[in-house]
């Protein structure tokens, strides 16, 4: 059970209701993550805004999905890994070998691989990477703006990982456990 309430649209604070309804319309359901966050309309607005803005960014959506898998594994967030695995399987865009590689911070696509290696190190070391790590990702062909967005995606996932772990959001997807002992 979650550590704080997981409200329905009707039970949520008034200012959160239209935001949850929007999620429902977009995804066809309201994942428990958004319900838990909706206890604070300010936090819900913050996270939905961050996601929407980054989606319009320079990075390909298929890279950002994989960054989410990498970071969930590093932070040991079962909720996020389950949700992300479900999403990518449902979309049919990544095969199981690729998802497994992504969990390890790697990819079978060489350009994506550079981004995921960088993302894994960033998440694990909380940004304490070397000059060489930054150079490696530049050499793989990413522009400064794209590198900034890789960091932003890692950061966004750190955000959702922390919320789901700290508040123990109930998993509403087929469960995929991270390897990190919790």
């Amino acid at each position, binding site marked *: 059970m979650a550590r704080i309430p997981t409200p329905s649209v009707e039970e949520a604070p008034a200012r959160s209701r239209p935001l949850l309804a929007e999620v429902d319309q977009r995804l066809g359901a309201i994942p428990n993550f958004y319900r838990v966050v909706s206890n604070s309309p300010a936090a819900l607005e*913050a996270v939905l805004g961050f996601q929407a803005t980054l989606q319009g960014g320079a990075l390909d959506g298929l890279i950002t999905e994989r960054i989410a898998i990498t970071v969930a594994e590093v932070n040991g967030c079962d909720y996020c890994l389950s949700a992300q695995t479900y999403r990518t399987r449902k979309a049919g865009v990544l095969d199981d070998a690729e998802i497994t590689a992504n969990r390890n911070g790697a990819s079978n696509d060489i350009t994506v691989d550079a981004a995921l290696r960088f993302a894994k190190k960033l998440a694990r070391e909380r*940004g304490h990477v070397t000059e060489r790590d930054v150079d490696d990702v530049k050499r793989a062909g990413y522009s400064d703006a794209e590198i*900034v967005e890789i960091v932003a995606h*890692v950061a966004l996932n750190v955000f959702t990982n*922390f919320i789901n*772990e700290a508040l123990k959001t109930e998993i509403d997807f087929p469960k995929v456990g991270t390897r990190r002992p919790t």
Partner: protein
Amino acid sequence: MARIAVPALEEAPAKSQPILQNYVKVLGLVPNFFAMISQSPDALKAIADMHAALGKSLGHKTRERIHVMTAEVNGCNYCLSAHTYLGAKLQGLSAEDMELNRDGHSTDPKADAALQFAYKVAKGRGHIEDADVEAVRAAGFSEAEIVDIVAETAFSFITNIFNNTFKTEIDAAFPPLRTKAA
């Protein structure tokens, strides 16, 4: 020197300009952190909007305290310098309070409970105990505020990751500080 370019205000992408101008208005300068991420207008907007949205709830003093704490936990000299300066200048936090903040405490008893909770979230990357949530609730924080404390902790992690990754140069306006970990 920073690891990626830090554009001057007039060199930044047009889409980033209004956000940067707003920092000039509020802070009297564009901190190097924002100048750096302005290369990706979407990343800049995502961060700026999240910052603004989270400000609607928790109270600015405790927000600054949380930023001082996570900067210490994550060994981010840039963030520690910036938030210690801003905490005093904009929020009137005392040096004594901010010294305690660095280790997850505060001179204010209610803020102390928030900081102890946030410290555990930051240290454990969200992996905390039921008792931690009960303790912060017992100190008088609502469900919304509990979400906000986790959200603010995660948000400050975001800025730490950015500034550690790119070794952002500490602005001349911020007296430079070093974390114990760095």
